[in-house]
């Protein structure tokens, strides 16, 4: 990728380093610059793979999207559509994706143990069950930890969504937690300094804050304070970035914005493409509203069509820009929904089987792995755990999924949770 602003960015970096040094103290700056070295200096990354995850929160129904059961009571009101792959049908809202199954790996027999949103989401994001005695890092934080962030002042990991209930960096360096963007349309907010505030005065303010804080910092330490120290440093660094434009969707032609579609899913996918293009390694787009306990057949068609449009456009767009070969795209959710339709015309939580989709770098397209039974209730063949799924993602992304990493308390963890990757879907 040609990045014409590289020279001015390097010059800018000097300015930021200067500000940060005077304002935040030398150690903070050194820590920042040290991030450019991977913590595993001895292990060069085989592929510079980016990862875009689309996380459908609330539990996306598998039966109305990627694993319908036509002709049965369980089908409900959702029609089906033939895909490019013989014998494989999708829910009728997934029109564009149906025409691209040669690029997709569909996993129809993912299975999990929990039907509770908080626990299911945590498990899918960290590959480990949620327990009180440790905070596991999210997959994206692991990816950065192993592969490092790309050179530049943009963060290595961005979340389009709510950063407060995201596992974040867990027990890893707080700087590996994703920068949350609440609204992809608004981008990263509060990055413009008021006209009256010169850079010199901004520097003075930061420096003053640091000095007034000396007594407090001498008296109190701990993870929380450290995390905020890191965030202050990251914020200053980000403010100095010439690449902040990457967060600005208004820079895209209207035709492109229309192609992706409206709403968080459309805007989020477009933002993800821009960020990956500008050097952000990991992007997660969180989309709420899938928890359809009531009136599912009224709510789902629009939502699924939005997903279809956004994801299909994202894959096409990445391909056109030559990025699909180095970008892994993941579509996931925390669990599935019941084959039996409830008395409010909705479906309830269903951990036993659900669907996820992979595409892009490291993925073999045109594959359907695993099958659910005739009702869509349980895995019939090719059942895989959430850890197996995430380990497959790690393998596709070229991350060291077999390696044992140790938390500060000494416990061993693996990227992807120590599962077995599904060879069938790996390129």
């Amino acid at each position, binding site marked *: 990728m040609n990045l014409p602003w590289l020279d001015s960015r390097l010059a800018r970096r000097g300015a930021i380093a200067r500000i940060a040094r005077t304002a935040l103290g030398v150690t903070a700056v050194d820590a920042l610059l040290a991030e450019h070295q991977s913590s595993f200096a001895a292990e060069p990354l085989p592929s510079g793979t980016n990862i875009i995850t689309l996380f459908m929160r609330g539990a996306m129904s598998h039966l109305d999207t990627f694993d319908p059961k036509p002709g049965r009571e369980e089908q409900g009101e959702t029609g089906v559509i033939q895909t490019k792959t013989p014998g494989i049908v999708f829910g009728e809202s997934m029109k564009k994706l149906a025409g691209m199954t040669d690029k997709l790996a569909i996993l129809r027999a993912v299975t999990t143990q929990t039907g509770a949103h908080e626990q299911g989401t945590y498990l899918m994001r960290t590959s480990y069950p949620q327990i009180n005695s440790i905070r596991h890092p999210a997959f994206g934080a692991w990816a950065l930890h192993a592969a490092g962030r790309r050179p530049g002042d943009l963060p290595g990991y961005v979340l389009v*969504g709510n950063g407060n209930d995201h596992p974040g960096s867990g027990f890893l360096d707080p700087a590996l937690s994703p920068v949350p963007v*609440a609204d992809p349309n608004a981008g*990263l907010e509060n990055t413009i300094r008021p006209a009256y505030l010169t850079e010199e005065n901004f520097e003075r303010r930061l420096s003053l804050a640091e000095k007034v804080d000396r007594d407090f910092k001498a*008296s109190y330490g*701990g993870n929380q*304070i450290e995390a905020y120290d890191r965030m202050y440093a990251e914020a200053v660094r980000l*403010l100095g970035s010439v690449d902040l434009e990457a967060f600005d969707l208004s820079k895209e032609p209207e035709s492109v914005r229309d192609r992706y579609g409206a709403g968080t899913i459309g805007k989020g996918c477009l933002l993800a493409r821009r960020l990956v293009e500008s050097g952000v390694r990991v992007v997660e787009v969180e989309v709420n509203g899938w928890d359809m306990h009531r009136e599912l057949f009224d709510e789902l068609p629009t939502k699924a069509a939005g997903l279809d449009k956004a994801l299909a456009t994202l894959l096409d767009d990445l391909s056109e820009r030559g990025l699909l070969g180095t970008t892994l795209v993941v579509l996931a959710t925390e669990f599935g929904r019941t084959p039996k339709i409830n*008395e409010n015309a909705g479906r309830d939580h269903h951990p036993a089987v659900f669907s996820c989709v992979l595409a892009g770098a490291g993925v073999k397209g045109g594959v359907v792995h695993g099958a659910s039974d005739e009702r869509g209730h349980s895995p019939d063949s090719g059942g895989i755990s959430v850890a197996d799924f995430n380990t497959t993602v790690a393998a596709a992304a070229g991350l060291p999924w077999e390696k044992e990493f140790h938390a500060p308390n000494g416990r061993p963890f693996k990227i992807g949770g120590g599962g077995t990757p599904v060879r069938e879907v790996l390129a």
Partner: protein
Amino acid sequence: MPTTPPPRPLLVALLVAAACAVVAPSADLAAEANKPAAKRARAAVPFRLPAAVRDAPDGASFAVAPIDRTARDSVRAAAARIDAILAERHARDGVAAPPSLSDSQFLRRAYLDLGGRIPTHDEASAFLASTDPDKRGALVDSLLESPDWVSRFYNVWADTLRLTERPQKNLWSEAYLDWVKRSIAANRPYDEWVHDMLTADGKLWENPAVGYQLRDQGMPLPYVDNTVRVFLGTQIGCAQCHDHPFDAWTQHQFYELAAFTAGTRSGTGGKPEKPVRKEMRKGARADTTDATAKNVRALIAESRKRANANGTKVNNAFTQFLQANGTVVNFRNRELKLPHDYQYDDAKPEEAVAPHVLWGEVPEEARGLDGRAQFAAWLTSRDNPQFARTIANRMWKLCFGVGLVEPIDDFRPDNPPSHPELMDHLAAEMLRLDFDLREFVRIVVSTEAWQRRAIPYDATTGEAFSFAAPSLRRQSAEQLWDSILTLVAHDPWAYERPTGEAFAAAVNLDLSGKNPGWEAAHAAFERYEDSQSPRKTRRQTMQTYGYKGQLLARASELPTPLPLGHFLRQFGQGDRETIDGNRTVATVPQILAMFNGPITHAMLERGSTVVDELAEHDPPQAVDVIFLSVLSRLPDAEDRRLALGEIRGATDRPTGCGNLIWALLNTREFLFIQ
């Protein structure tokens, strides 16, 4: 005293004028120097802060139940008993107590934890200057009977009860939220308050307590799960679907408990049913003999008919208005059956389940009552130890940042309290106080332990917390917002959430008798839209109380959930869909909001509390004023040197003051409660 040159008239004039234009130092400043100060201020650029918040404060609109000051001795004695239990344990464990809080540190923590905000400059000065030997006790008492306490405590319950104005399209809960606020203001005993919520009947704005049962409308099993979690600190949720080898509860026990409240109905008039959906609704609870539901259905059908005839679309807002008026909570004993896929040997699928409590028994005096009343009586009984323990633990965590049992909704035999003797004592105290939560808090904050410097603590290290002092906490999202608001608004109570009475008057349409007819119903809807509907009132509200798109009101008065990009959400306020959803995780956008966000700009505007405070004091006192206003303390020698250096070294004095205010706001000292 710092050695500054005696202020010359020109310098004073410049400072006053410039302090009024800190944000945009005017090029005309020198020209203005000859005008008298007051005139200069008035002739300057119009205020950007709305007048309503710049006005002198006239407090909140509601009264708060007074504190019994004569009880102070007994409060101290009760606090001493807690200290004694802790001291014994600390001696055994070899725990050293941190130093006691200075007056400044106590002042700040008391205002934040009991009032939800930092003190104003004048409040801080007054406290620090006071020579009353019991000024700390006096401060605690006055905070606990102030509207600030109500605001603070409301935020706590809003997070736990997932308070939101429109939990579903047909649930208009404004009156319920106001009712929670007023219950706190009246200091309703907790057990009675909970009992009300569990047993109320009627429409949301006629008997607002029904809002609790309606929060999980249409989900009777999660309702039981959530209720047991919040009020009994016990997780039975997994048992909703299956037995689990590690959990104490079986699916059968879950259903036995749920059988008590299975007959709760909300009689919502629904949409006319499409043929295929009617089949799916076999066994649905909608009771078509209910008059209200019938009227709602008829009126919605009429709307549809008229829309078809005119070739227009149905007005969804009107439909929702009808449904909101058609939501009436009532109870009729009803059998609960096991699910169709029940897989265990102890019963058959679809078998009816007899109601049975999880432990203990339904109090004798309640046994003749309906299922819902029996459940409520059992749950809130003084003889149900878990009820008192759960709330005692929650209140302890509110004050100390950590519960004796963690997580606070997961009491289990294999998760015992870290300090069992203290847990027992606190539960007993809760009973002794007849569930007066405010009095309980009053006692806890009067302990020596609470008045010591905070201890950093991370639960995931696996270490137990000593409770020799509170844990070091970041301000909650609401405390932070309210604190910055204190620096902005002379009158932070200018805007308050709508009262339940006002809302009821505007929205109510009686559908319980004869059908009033479509015309009358639609006229009532239009009246509501004109007076109270959020859409219509929002513009007016923002004009009067808004600044750069932000409604300048206390967090407790803002409509929820707020958009994800709002300051409060960025700093961790939950989406009100998760119980106890508030978080204090650090993110970059939070810092950007503190650096450049609208609320920070508001603080530096002419007419803000801190800028006006500066204007009222002579320049040498500027440093003290700023430190007291923002950090609630006086600067030490080094602080003073730095601050004066900044003010003198900056391009001009106002810029220096602005830099100093901003800098103090962006310290960790400001963000955390020590």
